């Protein structure tokens, strides 16, 4: 399968620290975040701007003032005007989508070097007017004479003024009319994941992230951002709590299903801002140019699943990638499964280890197997650091490649996330060429 295609390599990558909603990065728009990251990456890599053939950026809450945000970011970051740019959207996997799209472009020979990544400022999710309000405003604009203007103005005054919070609506599946948190509650019930298990997972996520920051693991991956009107330096992920405890987690009340739900703000991913950018090329080109290689992107897959159980996406996507590559879970040295919710990760693990699930889902007799805990999200996950929706996919691939290069002494890695709307995405990476 892989013989005739170009081998996709990641030349370099970098990300911003993740800032809490309304926090350290609140003054930076998605464009600002993306621009700073893309510029930093270009400066730090051995490539020049002229080497870039295309730019692809994943972004979910696409700002109206920067439609096709990829292009806006690219131009501001100094990418030459002749280089085209487009924005991709696959909800939580948008950042991953940008990278796999880049890989496909390169495999087809349509580009040699693509700048790809994800960017999100959830802080800047807009407030919307009710559609009734919009209608009444349109009538007012069309009104010509004074009586009809007065009448139209009265209509506007009576229309609903209360803003709609786009962030909340964006995190709700319109097909099944369920919030993402509610889908996690479904999984928690069906896979019998207790509140305690979820909190324990969350605590571990914080501890791992805090430890990794302490030991300097993230220093190379994460750039410094000087944010806001005071240009305060930001380097650490803002959401990480070294002092997180079971006691504190236990105190929190269920966020989505009161009073008996188990998913809380403490065991869900944090709403955050951030950007990650990677330079994608192929082996031949990188070797010819003498560029360093962070690692290879071997394969990827996106699978659909039940929107009410969108959290199951990673199981399906991982299964897809592993089976087409002829691999088993034990072949994978490191995994990153995005922690949208602790309940979702834990039920993913249960499903992966379940023969019953395998039988029901794919008609197979063997379970794909759950990874060991010391292979999964070893440097913490979105519960501790945050999940800027359009960006996370790119972050997972970046951190995974670094783990393979620096910690496991090579091998394969699998980055996966669940996608609102009932999908899963998985990307198989490695530190060496495919064998």
């Amino acid at each position, binding site marked *: 399968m892989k013989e005739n295609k170009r081998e996709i390599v990641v030349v370099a990558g970098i990300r911003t620290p993740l800032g809490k909603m309304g926090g350290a990065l609140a003054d930076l728009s998605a464009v600002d975040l993306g*621009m700073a990251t893309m510029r930093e990456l270009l*400066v730090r890599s051995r490539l020049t701007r002229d080497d870039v053939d295309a730019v692809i950026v994943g972004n979910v809450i696409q700002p109206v003032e920067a439609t096709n945000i990829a292009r806006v970011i690219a131009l*501001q970051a100094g990418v030459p005007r002749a280089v085209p740019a487009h924005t991709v959207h696959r909800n939580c996997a948008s950042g991953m989508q940008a990278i796999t799209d880049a890989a496909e472009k390169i495999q087809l020979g349509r580009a040699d070097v693509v700048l790809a990544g994800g960017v999100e400022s959830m802080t800047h999710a807009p407030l919307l007017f009710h559609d009734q309000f919009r209608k009444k405003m349109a009538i007012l604009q069309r009104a010509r004479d004074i009586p009809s203007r007065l009448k139209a103005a009265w209509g506007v005054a009576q229309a609903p003024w209360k803003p709609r919070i786009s962030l909340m609506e964006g995190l709700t599946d319109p097909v099944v009319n369920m919030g993402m948190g509610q889908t996690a509650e479904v999984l928690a019930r069906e896979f019998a994941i207790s509140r305690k298990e979820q909190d324990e997972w969350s605590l571990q996520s914080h501890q791992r992230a805090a430890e990794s920051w302490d030991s300097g693991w993230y220093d190379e991956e994460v750039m*410094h951002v*000087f944010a806001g*009107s005071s240009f305060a*330096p930001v*380097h650490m992920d803002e959401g990480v709590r070294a002092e997180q405890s079971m006691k504190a987690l236990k105190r929190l009340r269920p966020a989505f299903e009161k009073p008996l739900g188990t998913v809380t703000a403490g065991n869900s991913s944090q709403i955050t801002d951030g950007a990650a950018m990677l330079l994608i090329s192929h082996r031949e080109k990188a070797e010819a140019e003498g560029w360093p290689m962070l690692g290879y992107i071997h394969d990827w897959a996106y699978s659909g699943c039940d929107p009410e159980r969108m959290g199951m996406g990673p199981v399906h996507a991982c299964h897809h990638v592993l089976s087409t590559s002829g691999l088993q879970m034990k072949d994978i040295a490191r995994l990153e499964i995005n922690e949208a919710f602790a309940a979702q990760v834990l039920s993913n693990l249960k499903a992966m280890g379940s023969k019953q699930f395998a039988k029901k889902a794919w008609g197979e007799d063997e379970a794909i197997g759950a990874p060991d805990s010391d292979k999964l999200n070893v440097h913490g996950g979105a519960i501790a650091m945050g999940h800027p929706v359009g960006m996370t996919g790119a972050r997972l691939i970046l951190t995974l490649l670094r783990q393979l290069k620096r910690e496991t002494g090579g091998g394969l890695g699998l980055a996966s996330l669940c996608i609102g709307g009932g999908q899963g995405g998985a990307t198989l990476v490695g530190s060496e060429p495919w064998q």
Partner: protein
Amino acid sequence: MAVKSVLQLKRKKDRAILSFSRSDKPVNVLDEECMLALEGYLDELEASPPDVLVLQSELAGSFIAGADIHAIAAVEGAEKGAQLAQRGQAVCLRIERLSSVSIAVVQGVCLGGGLELAMACDYIIAVAADKTRMGLPEIKIGIHPGFGGCVRLPQKVGWVVATQMILSGSTVDAKRAKRIGLADMLCHEEQLEQAIEQLITKGKKVISIKPKWFALWPARQIFFMLAERKLRARFKDLDMEQTYPALMGALNALRTISGLSSDAAYAWEAESIGRLAVTPTCKHLIRVFFLGEALKHQDAVKKGKASAAKLQHTSVYGAGVMGSGIAWVAAKDGTVDLHDVSAGALSHGLQSASKFAKRDRQRGGKRLQRIRPSLDSSGLSSSDVVIEAIVEEIEVKKSLWVDAEAQVSRQALLLSNTSSLSLSEQQSDLKYPGRLAGLHFFNPAPKMPLVEIIAGKKTTKKTLQTVAALAVRWGKFPVIVADRPGFLVNRCLMPFMTAALGLLEKGQSAQHIDGILKNFGMPMGAIELADRVGLDICLHVGEHLSGALTGNEQFAMPNWFAKMVSDGLLGEKSGSGFYIYNKGKCQGANEALDAYLSSDASSVGHGNAVQEKEFDANMKEDAFVMGGQEVIDVCLIPMLLESLRCLEEGVLDSAEYLDAALVYGIGFPPFRGGLLCYFASRERSELRQSIADLGFDLPVNLEVLDAFA
């Protein structure tokens, strides 16, 4: 040689086109030749007026740059000045009174007399182009508009905006010109014909008073009263009638004109020009203007222009006050990496750059965005220019250069913003030392127009030329000076400062000294300057210079000064020095100062002063306050002597450039024409006496001053 052309008149059916087409200069100027040609064509036009008259320029980027400044500089006698204005007024009036619909097509610079001519037309079309700028900047050379601009600008844009424009000499771009009513139409080059057609249908223009309330006498008076108060507040330390007579002159002209019929108004305007054109201020400002032009067009700049144009990316090391200021300057038309090892310093640096960004609403944000903060040496490999503004220690600088050279391309320039360290020494460990030079900015870098460019022993000529041209590209005036301790400006500044400190010892108050110096026209008193620069830095520079320039005691700082530094009184940055500061604002004298001054036991006179103070505070004030001229002599004569010594030592060749350097570098009052110019105007024998009285030897090259007479 091609036939020289100045102005052409073309007729096409019922339309006449007057084209300004200067062939011997880069811009159109209303000089003698041009005026003669214009007057000739006007005779022709008056004899058979066309339906439409279009004024335009054949030169790209220039409509008319203004009247001939040389002619204004040469004016002797108020009569002559008034005549010069009357001639211009007459030409404008003749255009205005033609029966034709007249239209000026303004593309490129349209300043002073050029704009006045355009305003005499019924309509102005502003062509939207980057180079289109319109304004009446006469105030900058010490006069006000004289070709009827004081009458016509208010008619166009209203009195409020006109007063602001004339008093500040500010210019507007095409878009703003349309918005304020200066231009009647804004169009693109391709739409010109349509624009002209549209305006023709409107016929001759009818004039009305703008704004309407200006027709009321009391309203006018209140307006001008407020304008005058604002102006006086801005120059509160100066005697405005003496120093900048044109400001008050222009305000008075506008005030008077606003109540006159236009004929009387023109007469008044011309008369006022006559008075102002002969003032020393006018002559001096013109001199300084020409000196600036000379610096910008010096030989080195011309030769380096091509190579400087290629420089795109600058790396600035050190995010302190200077470094961030330099980064802001370099971000004018290129990308900048601002390096520092401390995130806190970078944060501060970006903050101070953002203050400059806020002043330019249109472009500031984008310009700030071009500065990338960096905590390591990333980006160096793609740098065309590396500028260091780090700590003044030779070893630190040398090791920075070695590190930088290992990463930058072979052609990249290495520039040191040192104020005292030898460039030759900084070159010593480099593989390609020819590319290293000094580029010394003054604080605050974005505001101070001067840069000193210094060659080390091995600096190539090409490097020097490129740096000079780069400085001009960044909007600076470069002077090339020799690699001597303190270079030029700081070396001349230090004796000035120490002399002022000497006055403190003699019991003069800091406010008194600074007040006199500010009244003289210095932007800041010598004592406050020490505070702003930082006492530690003053001490360091003083020690360095007195060590390096042996036999020169003028650089040595007094002992009590060193004690202030060791006690942490560092000036503005520590919150107190000679004055107390709060968030950069001076809050009055520092009471603790007396303790330091009196601790110096040698100062007997001062001991008396303290005693007397106890008896009668008022008497002390009278008895010990030194006269204005005396303070000025005590402070400025050491500066004069040092600058003459610089000339003698060949720190720089041109005495004229020295004057320019001090005006643009430390803000020596431009209305005095420069330091040497100021002393040249003093009676020579009396000056000799003053020098001797202060206990200095007569400089050997005092005759340098003769050239300025």
